[in-house]
């Protein structure tokens, strides 16, 4: 078994040391808490960068209790640390809302989590730390290296190459490469349905309810995404593999949502219905409106494009419910 991952937590609220111990125990990592209320921040930072690079740095956004004139926010500290360790993931854990932080500051963090929900992010934190470790050990030199780390199916190489941003295709010596990869993989490839499907999309593709997907999950286990930044509490499946396995298991011809219902153990009560019209065979997933995060299965013609999402080539269009006529 490899060595324990090393985390550092920088905070101006000494009370959070308690939570840092909890986190250390939950994740099974080594974690050092740097209290910068009672210690000088600049000195602490100098001390940190004199030592070996950690696998993750956790930092508070507002460093109000700190006397340093230079660093007022965690993002400015992040910028400082990135100078020395461009491939060190820096995660912000704060009481303030993500949306209240300006985007130029937000982008300096790998991710922002609310302190009051930190226990919900165990797997994400580990996934980020481990994946950065992989990237640093085995730094991509070519686009194929990235595709291999993603464990992408071969037949998807061409399409993936076509849509990858140019930062991932050239200048492999660029200091920002690893964070660019992280952002694209986590925020686009994994987040947007297209190449990868989450449980709701996968179930909808198979014509069944999200809650019924676990009945057939085992059939599709080889389709499960297990590449870079895989998060065990937020599964994804390769869409093309789902379809291939479906064809191998159901010989009847038909659309995926017709064939999916012929899988073993699936009964009529598992069938999905359109949220809006109650009709059978909803083909897409859509948000219920512009304000809610709630997504449901729907028939395409009861949906319209969601105005707050841009279209991306090869990804599914993000849609929302069409108001009743």
């Amino acid at each position, binding site marked *: 078994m490899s060595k324990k991952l090393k985390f550092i937590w920088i905070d101006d609220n000494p*009370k*959070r040391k*308690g*939570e840092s*111990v*909890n*986190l250390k*125990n*939950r994740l099974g990592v080594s974690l050092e808490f740097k209290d910068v209320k009672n210690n000088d921040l600049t000195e602490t930072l100098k001390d940190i960068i004199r030592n070996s690079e950690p696998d993750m740095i956790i930092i508070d956004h507002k460093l109000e209790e700190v006397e*340093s*004139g*230079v660093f007022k926010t965690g993002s400015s500290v992040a*910028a400082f640390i990135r*100078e020395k360790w461009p491939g060190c993931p820096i995660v912000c854990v704060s*009481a*303030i*809302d993500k*949306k*209240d932080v*300006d985007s*130029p*500051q937000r982008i300096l963090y790998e991710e922002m989590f*609310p*302190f*009051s*929900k*930190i*226990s919900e992010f165990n797997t994400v934190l580990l996934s980020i730390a481990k994946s950065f470790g992989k990237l640093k050990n085995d730094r991509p030199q070519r686009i194929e290296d990235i595709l291999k780390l993603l464990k992408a199916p071969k037949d998807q190489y061409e399409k993936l190459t076509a849509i990858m941003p140019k930062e991932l295709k050239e200048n492999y010596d*660029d200091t*920002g490469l690893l964070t660019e990869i992280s952002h694209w993989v986590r925020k686009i490839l994994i987040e947007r349905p297209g190449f990868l499907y989450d449980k709701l999309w996968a179930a909808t593709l198979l014509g069944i309810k999200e809650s019924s997907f676990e009945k057939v999950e085992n059939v599709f286990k080889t389709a499960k995404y297990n590449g870079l930044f895989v998060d065990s509490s937020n599964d994804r499946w390769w869409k093309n593999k789902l379809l291939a396995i479906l064809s191998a298991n159901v010989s009847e011809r038909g659309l995926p949502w017709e064939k999916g219902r012929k899988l073993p153990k699936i009964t009529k009560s598992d069938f999905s219905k359109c*949220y*809006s*019209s109650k009709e059978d065979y909803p083909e897409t997933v859509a948000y*219920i*409106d*512009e*304000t*809610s995060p*709630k997504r449901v299965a729907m028939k395409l013609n*009861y949906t319209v494009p969601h*105005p*707050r999402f841009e279209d991306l080539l090869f990804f599914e269009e993000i849609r*929302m*419910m*069409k*108001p*009743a*006529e």
Partner: protein
Amino acid sequence: MQYLTFTVDSALLRELGEKLVETVHLALVELVKNCYDADATEVQILFDTDNNGKSEIKIIDNGTGMSFQAIKDYWMRIATTNKIDRDVSSVFGRPLTGAKGIGRFCCRRLGGHLTLITSGTKNGRAVGKQRDVEKTEVEFPWTAFEPGKDVTSIKCKGEKKFIENAHTGTILIIKDIEEEWSTRGLNWLKRQLAVLAANRGKKREGYKDDPGFSVRLTAPDFEGGVRDLREDFINAGWATVKAYINNKHHAVCEINALGIGRKTITSQSAYPALKDISLKLGIIVEDRDQMRDTSVLSLGTLQQILPEWGGVQVKYRGFRVFPYGDDDWLEINHDRGLRKTTPKDELLMFAESLRGVDASRSLLNMLSMRSYVGNVEIGDDAEGFEMKLNREGFIASESVSQLKDFVRFAIDWSTILRDYYIRQQSQYDSLVAKNEFEGVISEKLEVGRVVEAAVDYLEREVKTISKSLPVEERKAIESTFLKATDAIRKHNLSNRLELAHLRVVASTSTLLLIFSHEVKSLLGVLEQSKNSLLDIANTLSLKQKKTVEEITDSFSDLKERLHELLELTSLVGTDQRKAKPGQVALKDKVIKVEKVFELIINKYEIRIDADGIPNNIVIKNILEAELYSILLNIISNAIKSVIAAGKNRIIQISASRVDGYNMINIRDTGLGLEPSRFDEVFIPFISDPEGKLYQSLEKRLNPEDKLIIGSGSGLGLGIVKEIIDAHNGSVRFIKPKTGWSTEIEIKLP
């Protein structure tokens, strides 16, 4: 066999020019965008007359220029462009602004003859003084491209030279100007160019630091003559502020603002570490009435400029220092966020000296950091400014911190004056009316008594006039008049009560924000305690562990509920995303509101039945907060009413589409309402016309729950009606269906 080929008639050039570029103004803007895209830092536009008295337009920039080959391969080959394969400029990484491949048609659109003189390096990726520069000059006699002639048959004279150590750039000279330029067109042009000229420098990863882009417009025939558009832009907003440090190290500030005029102040406190420092900034407000020059600024262009280029930047010996100006280094947004409204020390005294200004709240009108557009210049003689090694800002020093204080002094001072200005404006109209009225009754009045006095005055006047009338008529007039004045007095009284109440409500929203901030940190404590408990649980016996886990589960439930409630309070916050109206699905929001009242609903065994709302009922073009407000008010009324009535407590909500509208019906088994009261309940403070609701509630409600559903502000249904009316909908009480006591019907698009 014979082969045929296409040829192109010259008429196509003109045709394309007119189709692609609708007006001459648009053509000129496109050409300036090309200069921007070619990484120029300066462009001059000259409306000139040549030796023969004919108009010509010159566009001179210091961008990358083009090589002879590039002109041949791209510029002169119609339907090609070298912009397609990249989306940022090569030197500074600017996002490209120009439309693809229409530059040549713009030249054609502007005039009959074009001379193109351009100097560039071979690869076209360098600006400024370069060792090997290729200078190309080509003449385009557009008029020779007559209909009937093939495009390829017309020759354009061109030559190239190699020069050493020359500057890159492009000059376009357009002659035979075909269209008249109007002042209106020129103003439109200025507004468009202001967007480009707003680029005051930026750093983009992987590219050279962009020093910014300035546009000089010289049009001698038009008002104003020579214009520096960036200067115009700064001076067009609500105010221009200039400040410097004098030889005694005090700050000297000058403001020139709309409605205030020119004012100056010298600070009492000194900034001993500062010298050779000056500041110039524009204060730009997104409101047409607060602009000094609408020919340069329009709301549309502002929305593009401010988020991208607003902010107070720092220039050190002529060069911009990053990231000051992109970040909140002056802590303006920070202070706004914390609602810091009281100025410090001497500025507090200054605020107190202004009539009508509430000194302790005089910074309430502080704008976002992006609304202050300008630079602070640090000159050669300044000391104590040392750049960090990574060139990201200065190393902290006394000078740096005093610099911040100095700039904030100027900004805070201008903010106090803005508060003064805003108060003056809002009081202006009522003051005029009051003064006129004072003239009539020749006595001084308190503001609150104006209506009273006016009615008294009218009463006296009417009595005097009616004395000359026959008794019968006099009595009739006096009686009608009495009714009218009575109505006015009552209405005035209720308005004042409503206003007083709204003041209280307004202050609670601030309280709510502070409260939600506090709750957020408490949630953190809750999370930490829960995680610590779980950590301990791992060391316990199985049975004990289960007990501890049950406790933490209830912690989690509590936390989830608090999170949901907090989400509702964020609706009154500053989240931009929530401040935009959009589509909102009804059923989901009804379920959320139900959760808000969960405790009360369970305690008093109330059933809320929302099954009658189809999933696809969606209200269009409404704010989430508005829909919540409607539902919260109506459902809380219904809850009070069913508790007071004390029988089977059911509230039913259903919805349907009728004639292109969403009809929402809310029924309850509460106290019911007399049909004669159906209209008046929407008038503020008549929430319980028959007085029976609160009497019954007193009896049945536990005292501690009174706080939760409120004792009735008297404004609830009034607010509901205001919101629904504003969306061209309607709300009314209707005769309830059998089995129900009350029914409200809402119609919304």
